[in-house]
């Protein structure tokens, strides 16, 4: 329940479908427009839906400058009656879903294409970081310019100082993700990773070492939101949206980020879904650095705060494990394609629930929790969100 | 052949030597130092206008600035308060024949070496005349001290009580004006007066008396040791500066070497 006392409405009748992943590339000379266009083109190939069928567009991208979603309508030759541009980075998968689902539910749009993508020129990551936000420009970037490595190392360091957790525990998540990635054809990381390799990797920003870090790359992800009837009539396999939450700038007085907005909204999340944490079949976290995956596990109620070590040691995280996690390998093994990184888990969950996953399919998967986290504005990520998807009947 | 042609031939042929009595104008050449609350003579300064560069691709030229009494220079009567109302007292109005005259060189180098405050007296001049003849009227008298061979701090020779350099006594100045009617008086030191001349009576007699009598001064001369006691001709025209009190200048002496 919100502060108004009104109960939130569910997403009855709204479904997600057509998960699209454009294979990532480490560096690309193409602009973001090209990557987003490829996602749209692949979506057309998969669904036969064209410009006349799409009446809603929701875009997330960092490198689209000077354009936004507005310019893309002309570029793509579409005439939507509903348009949004979502700047929430790693939370954009959840946030675009929430926006688009309500638009479809209320009839403001019939079919919304949600697309996210970024290019990665040789120097574009550096250029993006240097102008990321006013706070990071004023008070973050001048301190070593470590980018996310610096911010997450301070979070990780603080977390490790406070709670029982070891690098081995983070390593276990990373190794499992690599195992998943080896079964996912589009992952940039193609070689197995052992715990020894993880532990002995060179330090990047203590205590963060090489395999804690994602590799920036170019890529795009996309999915469609439409009514259940529509999906059925088109013959598209789909998933239901059972619950979502979204929060920004949660716990601003925590001296160092040790929890995210999920912790504020976790009760509502499970109540809306009518489920318990143990009842879902997989978790897709936003995973640029394992510490933030751990926080999502805690704050979404999969284990108690501070009990992550026991939880990690008690479970296995591969697609065939006791707690399938980041089943395509996550950004740590697939790569971080800018804003597409915020879509990676969402699109992967949809694939898993609509029969699209192949070698990395989680057996008999019916439900998935997708979590997002984004935007290190200064010293912490501001955006958090989560969604619970359930396979269509 | 006219006398001028003979002169020109003698100069060109070396029978008459042209001796340069001038110091190079150099920013670091000493100038007279007055007590700090008084106005000071400007140092010689140079700024490039161009040097075959973007300021002027094919040529090199400079601006220079200095005082009227910087470097080897000429003092006109208006330089001193005693000469301020004299007719033709500024460099631009001085009759030009005064700039080409016979010169007598009074060698005080030994005395100056022995006594840095050496004062040239009438007696010393009379003794000199006994050896070299009377100082002719309308000639220049130069006081040779070899001071120009000094450099750095030894040149001004400043101490806490002021400069210590040789110069003429008041009586010597009066003698040269009243008894000999010279055209002017020159020194190797930074002024025509002795370093301690403020303590003479009148103070700065060379300035006060010579200029009061319409006589001229030359200072910061060099190469006086290359001149004969008598017989040379001095050539010393200052710049023609309107109402100028003096001017840096090139001072030359013509010395007859034909008699070996």
């Amino acid at each position, binding site marked *: 329940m919100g502060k108004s006392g009104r109960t939130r409405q569910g997403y009855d009748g709204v479904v997600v479908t057509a998960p699209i992943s454009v294979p990532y590339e480490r560096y690309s000379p193409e602009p973001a427009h090209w990557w987003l266009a490829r996602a749209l083109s692949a979506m057309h190939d998969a669904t036969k839906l064209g410009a006349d069928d799409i009446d809603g567009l929701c875009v997330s991208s960092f490198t689209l400058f000077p354009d936004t979603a507005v310019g893309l309508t002309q570029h793509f030759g579409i005439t939507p009656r509903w348009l949004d541009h979502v700047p929430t980075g790693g939370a954009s998968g959840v946030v675009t879903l929430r926006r688009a689902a309500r638009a479809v539910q209320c009839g403001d749009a019939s079919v919304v294409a949600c697309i996210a993508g970024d290019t990665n020129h040789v120097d574009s990551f550096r250029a993006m970081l240097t102008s990321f936000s006013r706070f990071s420009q004023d008070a973050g970037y001048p301190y070593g310019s470590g980018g996310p490595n610096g911010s997450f190392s301070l979070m990780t*360091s603080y977390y490790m100082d406070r709670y029982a957790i070891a690098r081995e525990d983070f390593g276990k998540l990373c190794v499992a993700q690599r195992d998943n990635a080896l079964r996912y054809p589009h992952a940039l990381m193609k070689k197995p990773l052992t715990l020894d390799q993880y532990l002995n990797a060179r330090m990047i920003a203590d205590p963060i070492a090489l395999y804690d870090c994602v590799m920036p790359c170019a890529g795009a992800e996309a999915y469609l939101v439409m009514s259940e009837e529509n999906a059925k009539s088109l013959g598209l396999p789909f998933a239901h949206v059972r619950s979502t939450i979204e929060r920004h700038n949660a716990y601003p007085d925590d001296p160092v980020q040790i929890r995210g907005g999920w912790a504020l909204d976790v009760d509502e999340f499970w109540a809306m879904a009518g489920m318990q944490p143990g009842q879902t079949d997989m978790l897709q976290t936003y995973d640029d650095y394992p510490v933030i995956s751990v926080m999502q596990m805690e704050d979404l109620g999969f284990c108690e705060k501070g009990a992550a070590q026991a939880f990690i040691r008690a479970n296995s995280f591969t697609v065939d494990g006791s707690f399938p996690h980041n089943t395509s390998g996550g950004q740590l093994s697939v790569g971080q394609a800018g804003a597409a990184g915020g879509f990676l888990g969402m699109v992967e969950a949809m694939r898993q629930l609509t029969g699209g996953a192949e070698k990395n399919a989680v057996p008999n998967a019916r439900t998935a929790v997708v979590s997002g986290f984004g935007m290190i504005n200064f010293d912490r990520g501001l955006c958090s969100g989560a969604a619970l998807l359930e396979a269509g009947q | 052949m006219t006398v001028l042609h003979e002169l020109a031939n003698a100069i060109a042929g070396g029978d008459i030597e042209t001796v340069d009595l001038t110091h190079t104008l150099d920013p670091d050449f000493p100038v007279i130092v007055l007590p700090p609350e008084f106005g000071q003579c400007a140092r010689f300064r140079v700024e490039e206008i161009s040097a075959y560069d973007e300021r002027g691709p094919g040529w090199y030229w400079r601006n220079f600035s200095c005082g009227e009494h910087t470097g080897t220079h000429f003092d006109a009567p208006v330089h001193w308060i005693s000469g301020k109302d004299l007719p033709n007292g500024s460099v631009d109005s001085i009759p030009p024949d005064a700039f080409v005259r016979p010169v007598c060189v009074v060698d005080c180098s030994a005395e100056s070496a022995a006594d840095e405050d050496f004062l040239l007296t009438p007696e010393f001049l009379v003794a000199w005349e006994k050896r070299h003849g009377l100082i002719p009227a309308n000639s220049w008298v130069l006081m040779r001290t070899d001071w120009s061979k000094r450099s750095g701090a030894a040149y001004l020779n400043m101490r806490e009580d002021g400069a210590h350099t040789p110069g003429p006594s008041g009586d010597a100045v009066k003698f040269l004006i009243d008894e000999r009617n010279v055209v002017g008086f020159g020194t190797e030191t930074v002024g025509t007066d002795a370093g301690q001349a403020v303590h003479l009576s009148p103070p700065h007699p060379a300035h006060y008396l010579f200029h009061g009598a319409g006589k001229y001064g030359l200072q910061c001369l060099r190469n006086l040791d290359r001149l004969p006691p008598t017989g040379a001709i001095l050539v010393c025209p200052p710049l023609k500066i309107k109402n100028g009190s003096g001017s840096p200048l090139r001072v030359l002496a013509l010395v007859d070497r034909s008699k070996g």
Partner: protein
Amino acid sequence: MTEPLRKPPRKNPQVRTVLPTLPPFSRSRKAMAFTAAAAEGRFVLQVCAECASATYPARELCPKCWSMHLEWRDADTGGRLISETTLRTSINTYFRERMPWRIGTVQLRAGPTVLAHIHGDVMRNDEVRMIARTDKSGQGVLMALPAKETPNMADDRQLRELTCDPKHRRVLVTDGRTELGQQTARALASAGASRIFVGIAEQWRPYPGSDDLAAVPGVEIMPLDVTDTISVNELAGEIGGKTDILVNTAEHVRPGGTLDRDGTLTARNEMETNYFGLLRLMQAFAPGMRARGADGDNSACAWVNLLSVYALANWPQFGTTSASHAAAYSLSHCLRGELAGSGVKVINILFGPLEESWRQSLPPPKVTPQKLAATIVDALRQGIESVALGPVAEDVVRRWKEDPAVLERELTQLQAGQAS
């Protein structure tokens, strides 16, 4: 414990000089107030005038009570290091060349948590003392120092990026004829400067203290007359490539305004030394220093101008001198702009009436040359770019910051007993 800085080896003439690179220099306009205070060595935070909460980074609005009345105030420098890391990679070339680099999160006693550079002697959970300084890009940054002095603390390599410590550096003092110049040379020698070139104009004029000056360890007397372009250029040709710090002690000052004297000579002489002298030194020495901003432990690091506080607003009793200092003050900002990107700081010390002959008749309080010399060294050691020295200068600067138009009126109004 900090390793004491060793005397840098002689430069290898076959190795290319490292070019200056910069830490990030972009800041919001709001954050420039932090930089301006850091240049004075002050650590300021925005504090809400209504709810008194301190905020960081710079904002437009109090995030606690939504008041727009955020004021920059001097902040409690205490804090605790609650998280830290050692960066081993950076996307920024400057930091990349200086890896590893420690940063950390400090919980300030003033309230907010901040990111900061970390002194090598500070460990996790230690109490720290925060300093705000300008970095090589000229922008304000925070550094956490040990709460208490530690051995060789100033030699910390991250701290030295913010300071201009004269230790093992070669300094040019432009005028050694005055007591100020001589005291400055002594203070620099005591601070560990390896060479102190002291300019003497007109060596044919004796000056008091010359023998003692020549006997100061490391002092080398050099011919230098800042009013003579040739002299300045000749000296720069000789030592311009090894001048790490330049302290311009040359000053020409005479009492009086324009009506106390005829003509322009005095004013011209003041301008020749105070303004054109600075200009000549800039043209001759700044290019070399600019190129050597990252040249090892004895890189070029600072240019120190000593300016009358009446550079800010004219004091008619020293009217033309004030004007020449105003010109020099303005030119110092040009110099700062031209050295931006080199890592060489322009330090301006605005002093009140100095204890010297031309200001002899002024009443106390006055600044002794010894005090000014000590302040130069202190500003260098601390890396502070702007200092007001002495009660008079502090007072004038304070009034100037409050309202320059009022200060202008205050300095130019009739004084009691003065008839109109």
